[in-house]
């Protein structure tokens, strides 16, 4: 008997239930209710976000596949496409950091190779609570080793990422994983169950009682009662996934299949109904044929299990044996568990009895979409004026402290745990502004970056979102790549809170505007709502994953100074304003004020200029200014340089010295060039109406900055390097088991 309590446990409202009954023309049985509950969950059904996501631009000459499939597909020429997407695994990573993060990697990899692409790069965007708390260190340690454990084993390099630390992520870490794959344009596969009568094959791990209702859990706030709501935590099996990956690519390569879909959230339910719905057909499954790991599983459990490393595949009768032979070669069973049928219904039998019989259209396409009430928080955090700030009395100290702030500090402790070189494509090691992977047998290369500054988006979601797009593109420009497409992961609090909904709408507006400005389509993404713990929401955290194309891999530029005697050139303008900066947080303990503003037209000019200069071979190094501003950017260029080259810079701007050093005014790039090329660089800037200034020279053992003849900063590269390098490792010198 279906009552309110049961509906609550399935995260369905009473009118949603009435809608269901109307759509299927009967009272659903428990299994059918379970199916609707996951497919109509926020996670799968995008109830609260769909109406807004429509605003994002998705068109473009390169777009082969936009949002709606497992991942986006862009044409990069030469008969090749890239397939890429970003996914969140936030809640599971809090419950069990290692397995949560590991299965997050497994999931996004499947999304990519399901489409016929071989994954060639992973990037991870992480958010944790401050590292001075053992519990936060334990989460970070678990998440990082989970990502490493899975990615390293399957042999896809984790080539980049980003990490921010903030108290709002303390009990709600964010684990967003981006993956990109490469495929032949004529060998892209879709999740479609075409051809009535065609057999449906089940491939991969056996089904257990894993993560049942993971999807609904990802759509509910965390709190005390989640304890016992805990599903059976999923354990990742990267070796099994490796077998799946190779075997799937082989059957695809040999053109043996009709359609394929991974079993991710909502497992068998989601894959079967979506494949049927996309083809406008139905599927019938015999649950007794589904390989099971545990005894006595109910139809409900089998349909909703989220066991990892499983795929659903449709082929034609005549190819079944060949398909099974390929999987056998990889030690995988591929039993036929059902057929494609006419009539658009999903029917499942168990012990000869029909246990599910509902129209797939209702399940997949008719989930209600809500325009939830939204209201700006008052006062708007970004509108609260900053108090008068005293100038620092010791800039050296402020500088060093900023370098030692985990958000700014070196992330090698993280990425050295990742195999970032397997597949021998990694042109730029982690540490550059963007990852660059060469394409074997081609002069082109792919650049990728993930970015998102939660301080900005918290103060002003719309501006923060525009900046996130701009900074990601800027990171690409710094290595010499033009952006071609975007995926995004939108991490927010509870959408039933009007303030959260407002943040979401603002972010979408900002993203849409910025993506239009750069002419880049959004080909997919992921929305993670309900990132709340005990009623507290995280900062709105959109994470952008942007892919760029490098025309000639030999021209790729890295951020490190290339040696002494080069000229340091700043493209863009220094501006007043410390609102939302890392410096404000570290030095003054404030997170208020208006974040940096951004003029997208100027931003584009600066980036085009950087690209043209690189193209012309004038640029020795390029690095964008982000957290920590000019001073931190100078330091990073010194650190990444061969032999750690110092620099001396003098500035004349009529701007507060602390702002000049640490302000985060947008649209700025730090370039170096040979002395002989300075004129050419300046001429190019004039032609393009971009403000540039030669501000100093590389060389020497110190990083020195003076303002109008007055010394601001003068520290040895070695000391600065030590603070930046050790900040994260030294926090882990105590083992993280401590106190957890």
């Amino acid at each position, binding site marked *: 008997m279906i009552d309110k309590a049961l509906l609550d446990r399935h995260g369905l409202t009473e009118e949603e239930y009435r809608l269901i009954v109307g759509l299927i023309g009967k009272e659903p049985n428990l299994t059918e209710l379970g199916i609707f509950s996951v497919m109509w969950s926020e996670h799968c059904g995008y109830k609260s976000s769909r109406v807004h996501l429509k605003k994002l631009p998705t068109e473009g000459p390169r777009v082969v596949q936009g949002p709606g499939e497992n991942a986006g597909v862009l044409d990069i020429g030469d008969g090749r496409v890239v397939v890429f997407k970003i996914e969140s695994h936030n809640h599971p990573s809090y*419950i*069990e950091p290692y*397995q949560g993060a590991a299965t997050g990697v497994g999931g996004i990899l499947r999304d990519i190779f399901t489409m016929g692409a071989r994954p060639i790069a992973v990037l991870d965007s992480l958010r944790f609570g401050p590292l001075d708390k053992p519990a936060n260190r334990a989460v970070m340690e678990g998440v990082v080793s989970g990502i490493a454990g899975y990615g390293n084993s399957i042999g896809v390099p984790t080539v980049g990422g980003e990490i921010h630390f903030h108290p709002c992520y303390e009990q709600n870490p964010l684990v967003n994983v981006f993956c990109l794959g490469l495929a032949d344009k004529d060998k892209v596969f879709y999740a479609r169950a075409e051809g009535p009568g065609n057999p449906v094959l089940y491939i991969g*791990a056996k089904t*257990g*009682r*894993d993560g049942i209702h993971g999807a609904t859990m990802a759509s509910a706030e965390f709190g005390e009662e989640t304890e016992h709501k*805990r599903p*059976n*935590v*999923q*354990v*990742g*099996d990267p*070796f*099994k996934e490796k077998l799946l990956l190779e075997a799937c690519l082989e059957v695809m390569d040999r053109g043996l299949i009709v359609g394929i879909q991974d079993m991710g959230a909502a497992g068998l339910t989601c894959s079967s109904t979506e494949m049927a719905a996309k083809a406008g057909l139905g599927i019938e499954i015999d649950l007794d044929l589904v390989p099971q*790991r*545990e005894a006595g599983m109910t139809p409900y459990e089998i349909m909703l299990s989220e*066991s*990892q490393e499983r795929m659903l595949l449709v082929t034609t009768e005549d190819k079944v044996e060949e398909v099974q032979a390929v999987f056998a070669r990889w*030690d995988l069973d591929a039993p036929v568990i059902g057929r494609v049928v006419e009539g658009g219904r999903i029917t499942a039998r168990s012990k000869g009895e029909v246990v599910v019989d509902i129209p797939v259209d209702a399940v997949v396409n008719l989930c209600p979409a809500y325009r939830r009430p939204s209201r700006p928080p008052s006062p708007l955090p970004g509108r609260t004026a900053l108090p008068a700030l005293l100038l620092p009395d010791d800039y050296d100290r402020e500088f060093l402290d900023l370098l030692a702030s985990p958000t700014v500090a070196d992330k090698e402790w993280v990425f050295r745990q990742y195999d970032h070189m397997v597949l021998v494509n990694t042109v730029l090691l982690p540490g550059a502004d963007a990852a660059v992977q060469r394409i074997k047998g081609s002069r082109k290369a792919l650049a990728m970056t993930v970015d998102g500054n939660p301080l900005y988006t918290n103060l002003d979601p719309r501006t923060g979102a525009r900046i996130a797009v701009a900074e990601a593109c800027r990171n690409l420009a710094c290595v010499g790549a033009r952006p071609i497409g975007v995926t995004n992961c939108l991490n927010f609090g509870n959408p039933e809170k009007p303030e959260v909904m407002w943040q979401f709408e603002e972010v979408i507006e900002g993203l849409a505007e910025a993506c239009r400005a750069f002419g880049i389509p959004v080909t997919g993404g992921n929305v993670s709502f309900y990132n709340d713990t005990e009623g507290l929401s995280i900062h709105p955290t959109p994470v952008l994953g942007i892919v760029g194309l490098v025309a000639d891999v030999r021209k790729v530029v890295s951020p490190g100074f290339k040696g002494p005697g080069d000229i340091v050139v700043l493209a863009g303008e220094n501006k007043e304003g410390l609102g939302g900066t890392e410096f404000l947080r570290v030095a003054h303990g404030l997170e208020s004020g208006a974040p940096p503003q951004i003029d997208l037209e100027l931003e584009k000019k600066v980036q085009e200029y950087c690209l043209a200069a690189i193209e012309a071979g004038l640029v020795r190094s390029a690095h964008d200014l982000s957290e920590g501003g000019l001073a931190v950017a100078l330091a990073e260029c010194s650190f990444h340089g061969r032999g750690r080259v110092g620099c001396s810079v003098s500035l004349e701007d009529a701007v507060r010295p602390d702002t000049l050093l640490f302000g985060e005014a947008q649209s700025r790039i730090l370039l170096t060039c040979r002395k002989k090329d300075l004129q050419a660089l300046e001429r190019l800037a004039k032609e393009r109406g971009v403000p540039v200034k030669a501000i100093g020279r590389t060389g020497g053992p110190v990083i020195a900055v003076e303002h109008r003849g007055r010394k601001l900063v003068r520290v040895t590269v070695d000391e600065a390097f030590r603070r930046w390098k050790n900040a994260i490792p030294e926090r882990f010198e105590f083992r993280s*088991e401590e106190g*957890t």
Partner: protein
Amino acid sequence: MKARILVSFKDSVLDPQGQTVKNALHTMGYAAVKDVRQGKVFEIELGGVSRKDAAKLVAEISRKVLANPIIEKFDWQFLK
């Protein structure tokens, strides 16, 4: 005193290691092997505490440090 603590995945949780070992043993012809589960074993040497306190200690350490209660179970005994 010496205590031995056995930590392994809960029965309902997938054990990829055990499965892989099992499959390997099968391909090597050990058909008699029906199932394999793999876990961790810790041997802890304790000193300067009463057996009673040691027991408390070991239980606590196992719960808080050695085993991850979300996916693992544990079981321990004194060796001498």
